[in-house]
């Protein structure tokens, strides 16, 4: 997978002879090295989870938020360079409030995804601006129901019903594919997200937008998170026992 792009990888404005822009691919590698971020679209909403690898035992739990609300009805989970992610979130927030002040309604998730994607893409066009080293999973609930989008450092954005980025994305994707998402409610979805994000010494941050949360994006309530955690722990033990 790693090919040395000698000479063609010095700038984001250089194509390689086989048509690749190496700087963007390297940016994507920064995303691949971060903690897993998962998003799933359930029947009545979206659940997003981030596996925050604990860098130091002295860090306060609950700090270093990786999931941010972008507006009342939508939120973003960030993987990759956290500082780059904050910039994207700030831009998304300003797009959302601007849309509402002009059109009087909450920004449709599709529109928001397009705007964020074009902003990320913008930073891949100039040699004096480096690409964002983070991938974003954007989930929201608007008039057309719950929607999940993933935006990569290249500026691509697609709509998904299940998405994962970061270290454990392959394992997570396999698990998500096994789920029957159209039939699950968000409550059940939370258990599954927790299952997939199991790893050693990490802090799990989860959020949802669904009918149960009155279509507002917020952190998953603590009791529900605890239930999911214990369920996942038992599932983990069952797996290890095999």
């Amino acid at each position, binding site marked *: 997978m790693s090919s040395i792009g000698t000479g063609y990888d010095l700038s984001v404005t250089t194509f390689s002879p086989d048509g690749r822009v190496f700087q963007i691919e390297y940016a994507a590698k920064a995303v691949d090295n971060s903690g897993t971020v998962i998003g799933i679209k359930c029947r009545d909403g979206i659940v997003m989870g981030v596996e925050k690898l604990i860098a130091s035992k002295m860090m306060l739990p609950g700090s270093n938020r990786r999931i941010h609300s972008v507006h009342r009805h939508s939120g973003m989970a960030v993987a990759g360079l956290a500082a780059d992610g904050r910039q994207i979130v700030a831009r998304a*927030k300003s797009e959302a409030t601007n849309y509402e002040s002009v059109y009087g309604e909450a920004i449709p998730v599709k529109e928001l995804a397009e705007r964020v994607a074009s902003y990320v893409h913008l930073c891949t066009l100039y040699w004096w601006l480096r690409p964002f080293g983070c991938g974003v999973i954007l989930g929201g609930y608007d008039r057309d129901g719950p929607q999940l989008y993933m935006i990569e450092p290249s500026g691509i954005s697609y709509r998904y019903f299940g998405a994962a980025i970061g270290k454990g994305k392959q394992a997570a994707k396999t698990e998500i594919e096994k789920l029957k998402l159209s039939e699950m409610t968000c409550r059940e979805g939370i258990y599954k997200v927790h299952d997939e994000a199991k790893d050693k010494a990490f802090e799990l941050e989860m959020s949802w937008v669904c009918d149960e949360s009155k279509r507002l994006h*917020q952190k998953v309530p603590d009791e529900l998170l605890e239930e999911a955690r214990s369920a996942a722990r038992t599932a983990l033990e069952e797996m290890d026992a095999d």
Partner: protein
Amino acid sequence: MATTMVKENNSGPAQLLGPESAFERTLYPYVTGTSVVALKYKDGILMAADMAASYGSTLRYKSVERMKSIGKHSLLGASGEISDFQEILRYLDELILYDNMWDDGNSLGPKEVHSYLTRVMYNRRNKFNPLWNSLVLGGVKNGQKYLGMVSMIGVNFEDNHVATGFGNHLARPILRDEWHENLSFEDGVKLLEKCMRVLLYRDRLLWFELNSIDSVNGPLV
């Protein structure tokens, strides 16, 4: 924007800054709301206002809500220019939205909102472009009751009972005599009704709406 000489014409503050500035300031209110009366009771705040917006002496709009709940803890009532009140609601909407987006268990309480409104009103007054409102801000946070007022020139204060406009002259004397700590909900409502009745006789109110906020239920009408 034409540049002409400033004439020696004493027709109000508008002329002092040149003709082009006249387009950018509020000179008179057009569609206005009348008094708002509010008091602290045992469990929180009670606020009453009528549902009318007048165009001069005509009762133009008869079901205008001049009181709105702000965030989880506060109630805002306004008298004066209704369009300016709507603008204030937009500012507060954005303020509360950004506060909610932190999602950290904290939320702006009535004291904070009152302080924000004072800053907004005072700054506008300093630019000679006031928001033509008298605002009453009341709320309960963590069991602490708060009731304050901001005028269009930025004068602000906190008290156990406040009123705007005519209410200051007609309702506050009643409140000064009959208000006491630990008013029950029913007594508070009766007291407010008494005030509103006086305002009805003297100020031609149509019918009024009562809003209350307490630490348990949050804002309710």
